[in-house]
């Protein structure tokens, strides 16, 4: 499947989940570049070209950010809040991809302006299907915001 050079930013601290997500994308022939940030700080560094990503070309922003909520250092909600506050990133599509189904987490995520909220199923086949659909939708169907 040709999906151009669109980037996926996966913010995930659990190496197993990271491996499973990448495996799912690959198995469904979504060959786009997947950037992995292991905590909120790394994610923000990537998006704003700071820290380990200082000097990065900020014209290349991800087409979708798959954001976990429970993260070391800076958590997912805080990442989302800072993205939405910044002119450069406030329109980027953000999908919360989390284990939590707590109502409060959903309310907070949507209040802060996430574009979608997906719960990671325990069943890998369902998880894999969710990842495939997310990839297809955000990389193929969805028109990204003009930056």
């Amino acid at each position, binding site marked *: 499947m040709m999906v151009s050079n669109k980037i996926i930013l996966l913010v995930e601290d659990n190496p197993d989940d990271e491996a499973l997500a990448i495996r799912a994308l690959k198995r469904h022939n979504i060959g786009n570049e997947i950037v992995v940030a292991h905590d909120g700080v790394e994610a923000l560094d990537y998006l704003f070209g700071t820290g380990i990503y200082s000097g990065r070309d900020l014209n290349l922003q991800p087409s979708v950010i798959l954001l976990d909520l429970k993260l070391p250092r800076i958590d997912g909600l805080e990442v989302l809040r800072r993205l939405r506050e910044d002119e450069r990133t406030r329109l980027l599509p953000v999908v919360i991809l989390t284990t939590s189904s707590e109502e409060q987490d959903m309310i907070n995520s949507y209040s802060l302006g996430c574009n979608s909220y997906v719960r990671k199923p325990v069943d*890998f086949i369902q998880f894999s299907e969710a990842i495939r659909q997310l990839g297809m939708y955000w990389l193929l169907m969805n028109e990204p915001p003009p930056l």
Partner: protein
Amino acid sequence: MNPEDLAKLRDFCRDDAAFEQVKQLLLQKVQPLELAIHQAQFQLEQQKTLFRVISRLREPIDLETIFHATAIEVRQLLKADRVGMFRFYPDSGWDDGEFVSEDVDPAFTSAMAQKVHDHCFGEQFAIHYEQGRIQAVADIHDAGLSDCHIQVLSQFQVRANLVVPLLQGHHLWGLLCIHQCYGPRQWQETEVEFVQQIAEHLGVALYHAELMAELRAEILERQQAEERAQALNQELRQVIIELRAVNKELEAFSYSVSHDLRAPLRSIDGFSQALLEDCSDQLDDSGQDYLRRIRSATQRMGLLIDDLLTLSRVTRSDMHLETVNLSRVASQICMELQQSQPDRQVEFVVQPGLIAQGDVRLMQVLLENLLNNAWKFTSKHPHARIEFGQIDRNESISAYFVRDDGAGFDMAYSDKLFGPFQRLHGIQEFPGNGIGLATVQRIVHRHGGRVWAEGAVEHGATFYFTLAEEEIGA
């Protein structure tokens, strides 16, 4: 007439005989006048005394002070040897009592605080005194009094006796007693009337005292009630603080259950699947079977965690009581159940118009669980009947039921039905996690109600529930 006036009068008369005649004539005219003046003076004094007694009633002073001041004044005015207020002991049937106030000539002994027992009085006379009888005895030895009465009076050296009832409302509270001890005394009508008036006003004081006592008792009771309420409030506040802390911990706990417990399961399941997909050629059939078992177990664990979270959410969520049409909720669920498996032959009977006060969301969950169970446990029967209704009983709190004619259960295990993860059927027989009835029970308890069940193996089950606290003893 004084001697001076008499001397002048003699001068006007021509001789002693004429003077004597005039003198007698004048005396006849003057004596009644003097008596009238004397009586007028007495009445004036009476009025003054009465006025003082009445004035005192308006002041916020205690009964004892009123009695004592009155006793002094009355004794002074009547020139009596003893004025006393006698009180019957409550519940003694007017047999016993004592003087509670007194003013007495120092030459005689005090009658105060000595128990007086006179059974004749209680038995024969009290009723008359209660109706206003008075007793005026000029000489106790010459009035035909009973021996026991004379004995009682002699105890206090009484010779002449004037007794007027002291009434508290219509109840004979005691007696106002005027004693003459030096000797006999003929009581004048004006004196008797005066003592009656005094007694009437003291009755007012007694009535006020009774009201005051009632008021004080009520105030005390209210204060105590308030203190109890405050103590209870304090306790409640403490409990609320503790509950909040527990709730917060519970929230944190279920958050981490929700988040952290599931993540490893996803790894186990995910990599098992990866093994099946990537390395199937290196695994024989039993190896692949083991992996599938691992996967199914992890998925089941995932569902258990979900159910636990649902259960905990039922406990934690805010409650909003409103009027809920249970019949409508039940009908909707029944319709959905039928649509989920259109081929099944199930007769649904929902009693219409059942309205209750409850939390709509929780009511939905409650009925879903009970009706889903009914649906599930009738699935092995070709025809089934599932019923929702209200039972007839003579109590103010309504009890509802969900009944099916399915697999039922053994009543011997009925106490286990509502425990979380308790199952009375094998997982192969009927699927489920054993969390549904635990959820039902929590919802019912949160509404203050009660849930119970009846059933027999292969003869169906009936689950009853109420949604409000039943009166104790009901």
